[in-house]
């Protein structure tokens, strides 16, 4: 056991930025009302909420009226997929949902739930690099399609999807369909105003970029018909009922401002750290290899590594005991690691996937973090390796 922590799990969550914490504290310190009320404390709350909404809209290059605050990325994905599917079912009696094979469970399970109520759900395959198969997409698209979910970048591998191609393909072949992108992982690094241009719905989660846990947003372009998932007082323009989390929105907005301001420098710095980690790890552990083939675009902070002969459960325990925090993929309800649907979709066999781990760097990662990982990982990996 150790007290020294080397945090390389930013794709799971990043620590709350001090500036975001301060923004939230300043909201909490004021005596605010419910933002839907009419008296002065309510109006002050409403003003803070709308200020935050303006920031999120600016970040995404959208109109503030498009921004729906949610409890996080999962709710955003549920609202986008199930909200549009339900609206289509009610209007036309049918709905078709397409989702890439590497979507986050928030999208996959939403699609699965839609399937249970009669929605036609199809999965879009990816290639060996984890990139969506554009030919398969073109073949699957039709005028019947309701919503196409393709994430901006993958949470496990960091692989960036060709969203512009997806949008143009959808516009050509499925003019009535909406494109939803889960931009949760991409938000800390990519310029989403540019990358998600033309996309109908964009999902965000604040805690992935140094905002608080418990708030996120779904941008909904004008003209998108979406049935609410959460019914009540009609907040968020009747798209998401429930009293808004003003402090959370302020924290999220503050974090986003910092992300935007630091983007160029942070991208260069984190890419440099990640590349050094990659090169030196592969030099020290020559039997390991990157999960994502060279030439495939990946987020700056992600390094997904396959360590054949190592069981990722054992590696995570061993690394955790010396304070190195990485991830082995998704967990089930019990907390046990599940076989990765992302790696399976990329055609990576179960044996190789069993030894795959994700290092993910973020805004507060340092050279020391990389040094420490390089000092510890090669030895532990070698000691846990089973020669088959």
């Amino acid at each position, binding site marked *: *056991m150790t007290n020294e922590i080397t945090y390389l799990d930013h794709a799971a969550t990043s620590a709350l930025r001090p500036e975001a914490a301060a923004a939230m504290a300043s909201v909490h310190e004021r005596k605010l009302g419910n933002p839907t009320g009419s008296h002065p404390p309510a109006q002050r709350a409403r003003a803070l909420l709308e200020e935050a909404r303006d920031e999120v809209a600016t970040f995404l290059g959208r109109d503030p009226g498009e921004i729906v605050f949610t409890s996080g990325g999962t709710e955003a994905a549920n609202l986008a997929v199930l909200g549009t599917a339900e609206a289509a079912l009610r209007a036309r009696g049918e709905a078709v949902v397409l989702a890439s094979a590497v979507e986050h469970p928030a999208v996959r399970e939403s699609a699965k739930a839609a399937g249970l109520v009669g929605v036609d759900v199809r999965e879009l395959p990816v290639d060996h690099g984890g990139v969506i198969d554009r030919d398969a997409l073109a073949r699957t698209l039709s005028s019947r399609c309701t919503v196409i979910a393709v994430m901006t970048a993958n949470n496990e591998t960091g692989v960036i999807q060709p969203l512009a191609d997806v949008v143009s393909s959808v516009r050509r072949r499925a003019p009535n369909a909406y494109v939803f992108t889960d931009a949760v992982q991409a938000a800390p690094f990519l310029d989403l105003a540019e990358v998600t241009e033309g996309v109908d719905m964009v999902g965000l989660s604040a805690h992935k970029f140094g905002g608080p846990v418990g708030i996120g947003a779904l941008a909904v372009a004008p003209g998108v018909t979406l049935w609410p998932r959460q019914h009540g007082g009609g907040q968020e323009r009747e798209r998401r009922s429930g009293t808004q989390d003003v402090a959370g929105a302020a924290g999220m907005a503050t974090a986003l401002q910092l992300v935007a301001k630091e983007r160029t420098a942070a991208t260069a710095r984190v890419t440099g750290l990640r590349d050094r980690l990659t090169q030196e790890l592969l030099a020290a552990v020559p039997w390991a290899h990157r999960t994502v083939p060279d030439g495939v675009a990946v987020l700056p902070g992600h390094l997904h590594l396959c360590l054949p002969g190592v*069981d990722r*459960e*054992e590696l*995570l*325990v*061993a690394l*955790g*005991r010396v304070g190195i925090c990485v991830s082995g993929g998704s*967990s*089930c*309800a*019990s*907390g*046990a*690691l*599940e076989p990765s649907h992302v790696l399976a979709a990329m055609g990576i066999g179960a044996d190789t996937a069993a030894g795959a781990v994700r290092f993910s760097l973020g805004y507060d990662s340092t050279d020391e973090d990389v040094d420490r990982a390089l000092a510890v990982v090669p030895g532990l990996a070698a*000691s*846990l390796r*089973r020669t088959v």
Partner: protein
Amino acid sequence: MRTRVLVAMSGGVDSSVAAALLVERGHEVVGATLKLWGGESDSGCCSVADVEDARRVAQQLGIEHHVFNLTEEFDRHVVAPYVGAHAAGRTPNPCIECNRTMKFDRLLHRSDRLGFDRLATGHHARVTSGRTGRTGRTHSLRRGVDTAKDQSYVLSMLGQDELSRVLFPVGEMTKNEVRLHAGRLGLRTALKPDSQDVCFIGSAEGRLGFLGQRIAMHPGEVVDGAGNAAGTVEAVELVTVGQRRGMGHGGDGKRRYVTHVDVAARRVTVGGADEVTRTGVFLPESSLTWVRDPLAGGARAVAQVSAHGRPIACTVEAGDDGSGLMVRFDSPQRPVAPGQTVALYDANDPDAVVGAGIAA
């Protein structure tokens, strides 16, 4: 010496207290819960609620906790053989196979690789060590102090290699002491009922439901020793030799027992209590395991043929061709169903396990 111990925590009170005792003794303790079963089951050691209990206890004790996903291996090494054995009309003990292949193999190896000195579980059994010659220590497996809760039977296949690396901290305590200890520490598992039945079979579906989804079940005829019809059974695959339940009474008004099951012919033969008894059981060579030294032909021993069965005085002999072990009971016994484990204890020290085998 501060020992590094990995403790298998099922979410029950015994393994909770096992972890607590190790912490109290000053060891460096890490908890691990095995997720063994991916299917739906409301009982046993792999439900989310049990994992949460184990995790919370670990938190209360201030130790690390991990969940290891061994569902695929559990399916391959425990569930599939269990299903296969039933299809062949045998009566397997999946808890023993889980101990053999999961806890004291996969998990024990994992514990070694991760640098732990010992693997602990919450079993009610004891390991004692003694010095032999100059070569080193030998280890004995003994019944738990609480004879009603003793689990040495389901551990009877362990050998020196495993026993030298395991700890059973609650083996020295009665179940009541275990619960009191958990209560004193405020552990949420203190009053949790003991687990029952096979962990991967839900109480609602039962054996018939579980196996029925995996193998063909066939109704069978029940006949008496003379071949006269004596009823029917719903699934011949679920009938066990020696079984009384569902076999009714004979023409003489006496209880009837299953004396033979022929799955292929879908026939169950029944008889009276006197017809069902057996004087021995044969354990094939490939199934035999020894805690240390094998029993020699003619040796006296005490047999136990089910998890909480009575001890049966016996003599062992080599099988007909010199292979395997014939266990001869001193007095006639209800038959041991094929597939059941027979644990053998020392005739002069009846708490000590000598070895085990599986009934042919």
